[in-house]
C-alpha cells in the first residue's frame, strides 16, 4: 500500500499496482525506494484522486467514464439523456438546437470535474486515462456535427471572430459540409 496526500490534505491508502499506473508516482516510488513516507500530490484534489485511482476495469470507473463520455458526446450528437429518461430511440435521435435543462446542468457540474480529471491525469501521467475519447463517443461516420454555435454554448466559448473571418472560415471548409 502507498500513502498519497492530496492538495486538500486528505490521505489515501492505495494499492501499489493502481498508483503505479501513474508514471509520475511510479518514478517517485522508484527514486524513494521502500518507504512509509506519504507522497504529496499538491496538484490533485481528493475528489479528483478518487476518480483517477479507481481500478480501470472496475464498474465504478466505467460508470464515471461512461457519464463523461455521454455528456461530452453532446458536442457531436443529439443531446444525450440519462438512461432512465430515455423514452424511445426516436426521441433521442431527434436533433434539436436547444440543449435540454438536464443537459445543461449536468454539463456545468461535470465539465469542470472532467477537465480536472484530464489535468490530473496529465500531471500524474496516467496513460490509460490520457488516451481516451473525452469529448466524443465513437460516432457514426455520416452523423452530422454540431454547428459551432452549439459547441460554443456547450462549453461557454466566446466567439471572437469578425463576421468576415467567420465567412472566410466557412468558405474554406465548405468541402466538408454535409452533402
Amino acid at each position, binding site marked *: 500500500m502507498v500513502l498519497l496526500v492530496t492538495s486538500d490534505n486528505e490521505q489515501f491508502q492505495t494499492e501499489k499496482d493502481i498508483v503505479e499506473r501513474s508514471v509520475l508516482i511510479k518514478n517517485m516510488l522508484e527514486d524513494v525506494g521502500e518507504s512509509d513516507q506519504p507522497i504529496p500530490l499538491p496538484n490533485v484534489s481528493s475528489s479528483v484522486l478518487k476518480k483517477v485511482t479507481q481500478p480501470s476495469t472496475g464498474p465504478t470507473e466505467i460508470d464515471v467514464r461512461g457519464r463523461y463520455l455521454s455528456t461530452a458526446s453532446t*458536442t*457531436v450528437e443529439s443531446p444525450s439523456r440519462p438512461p432512465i429518461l430515455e423514452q424511445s430511440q426516436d426521441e433521442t435521435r431527434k436533433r434539436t438546437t436547444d440543449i435540454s435543462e438536464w443537459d445543461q446542468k449536468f454539463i456545468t457540474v461535470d*465539465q*469542470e470535474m472532467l*477537465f*480536472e480529471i*484530464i*489535468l490530473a491525469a*496529465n500531471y500524474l501521467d496516467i496513460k490509460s486515462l*490520457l488516451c*481516451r*475519447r*473525452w*469529448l*466524443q463517443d465513437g*460516432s457514426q*461516420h455520416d*452523423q*452530422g*456535427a*454540431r*454547428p*459551432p454555435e452549439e*459547441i*460554443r454554448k456547450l*462549453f*461557454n*466559448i*466566446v*466567439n*471572437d*471572430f469578425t463576421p468576415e473571418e*467567420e465567412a472566410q*472560415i*466557412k468558405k474554406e*471548409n*465548405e*468541402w*466538408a*459540409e*454535409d*452533402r
Partner: protein
Amino acid sequence: MPIHLLDLPPEILTMILYPLDLRSLIACIATNRRVKSIIDGSTLLQYRLAAQAACVDDVPGNGLTSADRLVALQRREVAFIEGLPSSIHTVQMDDFPIRNTYALSGGNFFMTELTEKSLRWTSLESKGQQQPIWERLELNEYIIEIGLAVPEEDLVVVLSSTAPLNVDVLPSDVILKLHLFEMSTQSAHREALEPAIVLPIDAVAWPDFEIDICGPNVSILAFSVDNQHPDNRLLVYDWKKGRLQMLIRLEYLNCGILSDSEGIADPHISLTLPKSPDGCEYDITRVESNPKGSNAATSRPFRSSFIDSLVVLSVLCFPPAEATVFQQMFLVIHRQALLQQISSESHTRQRSWEEWGPPISRWINADIITQTEWPTIICGQRLAFLTPQSHIVLLDFNPYTRKRALLEQAKRTDGNAIEPTASQFVSVPPSELDIVDCLALFGEEPHSQLEYVAKKSRKPVAWSGVIMDEEWIVGINVCLSSFVKNYQFITPTKNSRTPQMRMENSGSMFGILDELRK
C-alpha cells in the same frame, strides 16, 4: 475558480480534440480564435483531418512523426486526385516465361511461372530507375491459384495440387492443399496453426478455383467440371485456426468475402439486382473488395479505411434480342452499407433492388475487354480500369474529394481559371460513364446514387490492362504471339516538369511493361 475548456494547456486541448471526427473538428475551428490556432498549428490534428478527408486509417508505430505522415498522405492524394503521379517507370519482364496470373498487393507485383511450381514477385518500392529484384518461392507442387492479403495480414495463400490440373485426364489421387505463407519471412505464416491445409475436395470433379481473403477468413470457390449445370462448392476457412467453417453447395459462379469478423454464418439474405426484362440475363463475372480486412500489417503510415471501402461487381448482361452482344458493367457498392443490409433487423430473406440498392451503389458502364482476368482494380474508395480506346479511367468515390471537385468546378465557371495542364488526366463528367440503355437492360431506371469523381488519361496508353492497390497503378502489356523477348529499357519519368511530385514510394504510379514479342 472553475476551469474553462480554453484554460487547458494547448497539448491537452490537442489531446481532447484528437479523437473528434472530421466534421466536428471543422466545427470546432469555427468556434473561437484560440481553438482555431491550436488546430491550425498542430500537425497531429492537421494529419488527423487530412486522414479522415482521405478516408484512410492511421497505422501507429513505425517511428514516423505526424508531420512525416501528413506529408506522405498529401503526396499520395495529390498523385491520385490531380493525376500527377510521383513517378512513372516501365519495367521489362525478366527472361522467364509466365502464365497469365497477376496480382498486386501492398506494393508487390506477383505472378506464377509457366512451370507452375513457383511464384515470383517484385517489390515496386525498389528504387525507381533500377532493375526490379525478383523474389521466388518454389513449391514441390503445382500452383493452382493464389490469394493475397499482404498489407493486411502479411499473408500469401497458395492453392496447390500434386498434379497439373490442365491435363485431359487427371489422376484420381490428386491432393489439393492450401499453403499459408508469411510475406515478410517467406516461410510458413506464424499466425497459422496449420501452415498447410489439405482440402476435402476432389480435383477431378472440381478442377478450377478462386480464392478470396478477408481478415481471418479465406474462401475457396471450387468450380465443377460442368458449367452448364454448375454444382460448385464454397469452402470457408479460418486460416489462423486452420478450421473449415463452412462447406456448401453453390450454384453461384462467384463469391467474395466482405467481412473480416470471425464466425461465418450461412447465407441468409438475397439482394436482387434491378428486374431485367424477360430473357435478359445477368452474369456476375467478378466480385472484388479491397482492403482484405481491417487489420494492418503494413509498415506504411496509413492505409485505406476498411469500413469506408467499396465492393465492385463486374456484371455482364445479355439482352434478349441480340444474345451475342452483351453489356459489361460495374456495380460499385459501399461495403459497410452493404454489410448493414445483412445485419439489419429485418427478417426478410429477399430484398428487392429498390429496397437496398439505389442509395448505396452505382452502376457504371464499363465496356472493357476481358481477355485476361485482371485481379485487383479497386482499393479503398478508388477504382481503375481501361476503356476499349485504351484510356485509363480513375474513379474516386470519396465524398470529400467529390465535394472539392464540385466547388472547384463552380469556381472555374465563375472565373477564368482553367484545368491544370500538367495533369495527364482530364475530368470526365459522370454521365459519360452512365449506363446508356437502362430500359433495355433493366426495364427501368436503376437510380443508383453513389457519387464519384472520374478522370481519364489524356492519351491512350499502350497497356492491355490496369491493376491497382493502395499506392500503385500498374499497367500491364501482354503480347502473347511469341515467347521471344526483348527487354532493353527502363524509361525515366516522363513527368520531369513537376520534379516536386517525383517522390519515392508514396503515391507513386508505376508502369510495368510485360512484353513478350517477336
